[in-house]
């Protein structure tokens, strides 16, 4: 690769957090005498990265890790406190779909206004107009005021305008997950088209699996610093582990292996390993086989279930269930029996650990992404499965 499309060099960003931001002159004068009450908050610290032209890079990290701040600095919306950013080519930043849409104007008027703010000339907009409308699927509503649009229509139009801006570098912030599934697929197709055309893309997402699927490379931010960078698959794997650590303190590097996890199995209603997934509302058993070569006093087995976005859904352990293991030597089988799986759909991740009661020592841990899948036939909406029944009475 020759010149990178985006070069970030030692970028730091400090925000001043005021308890109550003095914005009037009087307050300014008053707070001038007092010591600065602002607290420095470093959103980014010494970030360096080179993004070669034609690659798609994902920025991942927990909330508040600085992803959006970095994207805004690359897009020229805010300035770094130190360091520098060099970019080559026309940049379009999709930080919010339909930013600047005016509710009183029609879809057509907003397309022209938005496109010109994003950098298209009137002639360019004229030539893309039909394609923009077609992409947004709003042919029938394009001359209606935007205030009458549903939120889905609003973001569809916003996305349609933004991707027709014809940028060399496209910055995308969490906006690939808009609209219904069909529209999302269309957005991802368009992203693939961008990649084929050799454009550069930087995608911010908390959906790490999307990043793994779409991006060539990924950068993981944590507390404003680069924690991992490189091949998207690798970084996403790191990210998942990192996210596990937030809620599962047994996920640690320094395992002693005094007790080892030999096997973790999921068993369905029939006591078999489910091959198609688990039906919502069904029972599920998590079976953990551990083995200690030498006697270990009171080990605790913990388990945690996460959803596809690494959110902790459920956590328990033998200390919670008040099921002391005593002194363990040799093999044990610990089973967690969940009587009703309370989720409706999606892939879930399982983490299991063996550790001392106070967590001073972690003996071993194990985690499996996509450990099980919940399915319902037909698929249902909502995220929680509430056990229920219905009845009819004649009155």
């Amino acid at each position, binding site marked *: 690769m020759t010149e990178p499309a985006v070069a970030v060099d030692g970028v730091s960003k400090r925000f001043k957090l005021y308890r109550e931001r003095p914005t009037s*002159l009087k307050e300014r004068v008053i707070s001038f005498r007092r010591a600065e009450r602002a607290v420095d908050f470093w959103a980014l610290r010494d970030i360096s990265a080179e993004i070669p032209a034609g690659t798609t890079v994902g920025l991942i990290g927990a909330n508040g890790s600085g992803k959006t701040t970095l994207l805004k600095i690359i897009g*020229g919306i805010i*300035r770094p406190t130190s360091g520098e*950013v*060099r*970019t*080559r080519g026309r940049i379009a930043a999709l930080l919010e779909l339909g930013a600047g849409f005016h509710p*009183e*104007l029609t879809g057509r008027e907003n397309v022209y206004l938005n496109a010109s703010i994003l950098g298209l000339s009137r002639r360019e907009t004229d030539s893309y107009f039909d394609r923009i409308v077609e992409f947004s699927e709003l042919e029938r509503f394009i001359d209606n005021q935007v205030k009458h649009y549903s939120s889905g229509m609003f973001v569809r139009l916003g996305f349609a305008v933004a991707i027709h801006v014809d940028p060399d570098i496209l910055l995308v912030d969490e906006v690939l997950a808009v609209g219904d599934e069909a529209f999302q697929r269309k957005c991802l197709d368009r992203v693939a088209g961008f990649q084929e055309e050799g454009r550069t893309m930087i995608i911010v997402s908390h959906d790490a699996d999307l990043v793994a699927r779409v991006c060539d490379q990924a950068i993981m931010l944590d507390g404003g610093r680069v924690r991992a960078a490189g091949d998207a698959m690798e970084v996403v794997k790191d990210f998942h582990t990192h996210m596990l650590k937030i809620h599962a303190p047994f996920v640690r590097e320094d395992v002693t292996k005094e007790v080892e996890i030999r096997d973790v199995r999921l068993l369905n209603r029939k006591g078999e390993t489910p091959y198609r997934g688990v039906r919502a509302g069904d029972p599920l058993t998590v079976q953990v086989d551990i083995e200690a070569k030498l006697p270990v006093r009171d080990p605790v087995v913990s388990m945690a279930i996460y959803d596809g976005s690494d959110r902790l859904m459920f956590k328990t352990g033998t200390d919670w269930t008040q099921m002391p293991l005593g002194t363990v030597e040799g093999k044990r089988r610990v089973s967690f029996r969940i009587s009703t799986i309370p989720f409706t759909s999606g892939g879930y991740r399982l983490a299991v650990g063996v550790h001392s009661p106070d967590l001073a020592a972690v003996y071993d841990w194990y985690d499996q992404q996509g450990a099980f899948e919940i399915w319902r036939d037909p698929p249902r909406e909502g995220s929680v499965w509430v056990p229920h029944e219905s009845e009819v009475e004649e009155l």
Partner: protein
Amino acid sequence: MSATGLHHRTSESPRFNILERIREVLSRREVIGNLIGKELKVKYKSTVLGVLWSMLNPLLYLVVFWVVFTVFLPAGIPDFAVFLLSGLLVYTLFATGLAAGTGSVVDNASLVTKVAFPREVLPLAAVGASLVNFAYQVAVLLVFMIAIGYDFVGWNLLLVPAGLTVLLLFTTALAMGTSALNVRYRDTMHLVELSLIAWFWVTPIVYSASLVLGRLDIWAQRLYLANPLAPIVLAFQRGLYGYRLAGNCNDAGVQDALPARIAELPGCQAILPDPGLTWYFWRLGLVAAMSLVLIALSWWIFFRMSGDFAEEL
């Protein structure tokens, strides 16, 4: 910094180069046009009369003052309706342009925090929208003047485009500075609104300038004319209303009466300070020069502060 070239961003705001900024803004002039269009469309959306509403305001003034001062009180300034409107429309453009311009960056916070574009287009579009309204209102005044057979065609009309140019320069210069200051100090908006009330009364709009100047000593006169709006309003009055006399002037009541001649007539008073056109052009030139310095200064302030807009909003 072209739209397709190499961008280089550091903690420092890039060096302020006004020619470069002008080029940048000119390259995005379609945005200004679209933002002006947006302002006007939004203002008259869901109205039946639409842009007529802009024209009804000056029309009402014209009819009321014409009736009151020709029928009921036929004294004071002759054709008061025309005199008043030729100054009032100027002030309306200034006041609406400055007020809308001051609030322009804050009002468009959702854009500023989400999209990178030269922020200057916001105050410029606000002034531009006021200019469009001004054009409608001037059209009303001109139609009225033609309808009542007012004699105003001549070289004096050259003062109108000259005055308008200087007015736009001055309004833009102020609006650019205040729009940037308003992001950090929201007091700016209140200060501007208050100042606009006071400013109206120190500018010769509802009263004649020579009436005031005649009662001031030379230094007070200079101070009075140092108000940049005074020469602009006077230029419009000279251009549209013309050099007129008021009071008991008898045979001296001609357009080109010499000041010396008028002074001999007790009870006769010229409404504008000078009969010729040069005096007005000269005064306008001074304001133009001052506005150019001011525009460079406030653009610099705007540019320096604009790097932090997205954070402060």
